[in-house]
């Protein structure tokens, strides 16, 4: 066990897996010599050399697309898209090629590929660097979507991602890289997909979040506590596969629920969570399920980003409204 930040946990997982499995290669823009713009891959090149830690040209589509070819030759690519927003440049490769290779070939050519990318707001980045795209990827089947919110999960879920036989989008909350830290077990361990994490137990209202919104939900729970409201907080960890049974159970604890995320509300993954819960647990609902999300606008320049990214105050307000409903 050691106290680590999230970025350290990610780096340690990469290092461990590259040592354990020599088929693993890491590639992307600036991942080699520089060690990544956030240093997620720092030091890897010294250990594993430039043919396993590859600086690529600036071309997201061929970074993603060539990974499928590499995988067909038996390698296990872990690619970095420097910021998730730029995955739009590789959208057709990720969603139509990586995600469908297994299906198209009836299992003959699966794509064991991990796509790592940071995203999320409140770190004063330029346009596109903070955009949340999880819901769009979730609508494209064939991709597993992994969104850790804690340091130990970052390590255990990344190890699981690299070993998973399907393409995995491993989305890292920028704000958490250095702000989120925790006790991380030494050595090899994995965290399974499709099993949510209970962040905090409570009985009045259930807060559902993932990635960078988990600390927001947890903070809201503290604030609610001070008002005498007991919030149950869960971290979904993976959106695909989704822990449906765990979600229903979490809702049933309280009969009320607020889902929190950073992407715009309309067609965000919050809509899926709400739709699913009302389908599967209708008779447990004490009040309308609520979403607290970014508005249907674009991630703004930093001067107003704190208004765009939903904060704990809004979560508290929605939770209280839910209790009054």
């Amino acid at each position: 066990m050691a106290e680590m930040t999230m970025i350290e946990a990610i780096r340690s997982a990469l290092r461990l897996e590259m040592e354990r499995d020599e088929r693993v290669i890491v590639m992307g823009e600036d991942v080699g010599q520089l060690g990544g713009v956030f240093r997620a891959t720092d030091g890897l090149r010294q250990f594993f050399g430039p043919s396993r830690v590859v600086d690529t040209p600036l071309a997201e589509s061929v970074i993603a697309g060539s990974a499928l070819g590499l995988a067909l030759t038996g390698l296990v690519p872990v690619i970095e898209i420097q910021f998730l927003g730029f995955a739009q440049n590789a959208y057709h490769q990720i969603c139509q090629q990586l995600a469908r290779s297994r299906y198209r070939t009836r299992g003959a050519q699966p794509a064991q590929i991990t796509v790592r990318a940071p995203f999320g707001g409140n770190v004063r980045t330029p346009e596109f660097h903070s955009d949340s795209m999880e819901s769009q990827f979730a609508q494209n089947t064939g991709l597993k979507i992994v969104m850790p919110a804690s340091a130990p999960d970052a390590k255990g879920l990344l190890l699981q991602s690299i070993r998973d036989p399907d393409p995995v989008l491993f989305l890292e909350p920028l704000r958490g890289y250095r702000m989120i830290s925790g006790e991380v077990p030494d050595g090899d361990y994995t965290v399974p997909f499709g099993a949510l994490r209970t962040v905090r137990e409570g009985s009045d209202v259930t807060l559902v979040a993932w990635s960078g919104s988990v600390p927001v939900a947890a903070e809201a729970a503290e604030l609610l506590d001070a008002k005498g409201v007991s919030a149950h907080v869960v971290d979904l960890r993976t959106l695909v596969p989704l822990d449906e049974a765990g979600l229903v159970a979490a809702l049933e604890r309280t009969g009320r629920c607020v889902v929190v995320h950073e992407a715009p509300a309309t067609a965000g993954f919050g809509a899926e969570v709400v739709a699913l819960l009302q389908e599967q647990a209708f008779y447990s609902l004490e009040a309308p399920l609520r979403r607290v999300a970014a508005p249907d606008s674009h991630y703004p320049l930093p001067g107003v980003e704190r208004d765009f990214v939903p904060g704990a105050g809004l979560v508290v307000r929605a939770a209280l409204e839910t209790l009054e409903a």
Partner: protein
Amino acid sequence: MRVEPQFLPSTEAVEPIRLLDEAGRLAPGAEAPLDPSRTLEALRFMMFGRAFDARCWSMQRQGRLGTFAPITGQEAAIMGSAMAADPARDWLVPQYRELPALLRHGYPVERVVLYRQGHPAGGFVPPGVRVMPYQVSLAAQLPHAVGIGWGMKLQAQSGVAMVYFGDGASSEGDFHESCNLAGIVDAPVIFLLQNNGWAISTPRSIQTAGSDIASRAPAYGFPGVSVDGNDLMAVYLVTAQAVERARQGGGPTLIEAHTYRMGAHTTADDPSRYVDPETEKGWARRDPILRVQRYLAQLGEWSEDRDAQWRKEIEADVDDAFERASRFPPPRASDLYEHVFDEVTPALARQRRWHLQEAAGGDEETG
């Protein structure tokens, strides 16, 4: 004061490399790079491809097959290149007009039948067969091929990746990103451009203002070759040399094979709306199959009898392909739920139970 740009466009296309003329005569001083027996091997695949097209076309018209893309006219570009690939170590990455190349590489023809019948099993690739399935998204296969070539190189294998694409596909961003990366990592990749003059109704002249698509290669750090794509020998020769260079660590080559789509884009297309009949006739004279047969006839290896005999055998082979496909069980709704992931997700399991009205494991409901 005036200065001249160092890089100026050329106004005329270069002369494509050619070994066999339309009468099937070898160019003066040329040697045939394929001996008669290998030439016959290639011809057999070419003739099979054309016969298979004809059969599929008539079945499509009867409503028994879906839309497909014929290869007629492009057989020399396809087989000349494919003959240079070694099925035991090289990969073929097709667009969608490379049927005989895939067959020679070990891809089972009945899978193509199933694919055209719309059967999901048509996408399966048997273990050990080094081909990717047909690609519908234009140019999307090019990055894959770069990854394959690069991956083999990283693992010190001697294979090369041969990737096919059309003149239309060459305008996509993926073309650029792929050539550029292949040049940087010196990947053993043969970029085999079948310039058949058309992208559906879009002529080559609207596809790019450059004189030769092959001329893009040097800026990526590797050679480009322009070849007569209706000349089996020439295509084979330039491809075999490119494969050899790639195996030796010499990196990629871009080969532009000038050929012609002798007919419709697909069974859904009506080329009379855009093709000039005169142009079409001109290309009919350059038929790639006739050219090989004429060449072989000069060597005493081809005759009307042999032609008749082969046509009969090939028809039987086509029958056989359909017959083998027919032995597959018909597709089922449950096919939708298979091979999406390694393991079924809770959502898929729930959807499947409701959709197929299978024994429910609980109170899940959504469709």
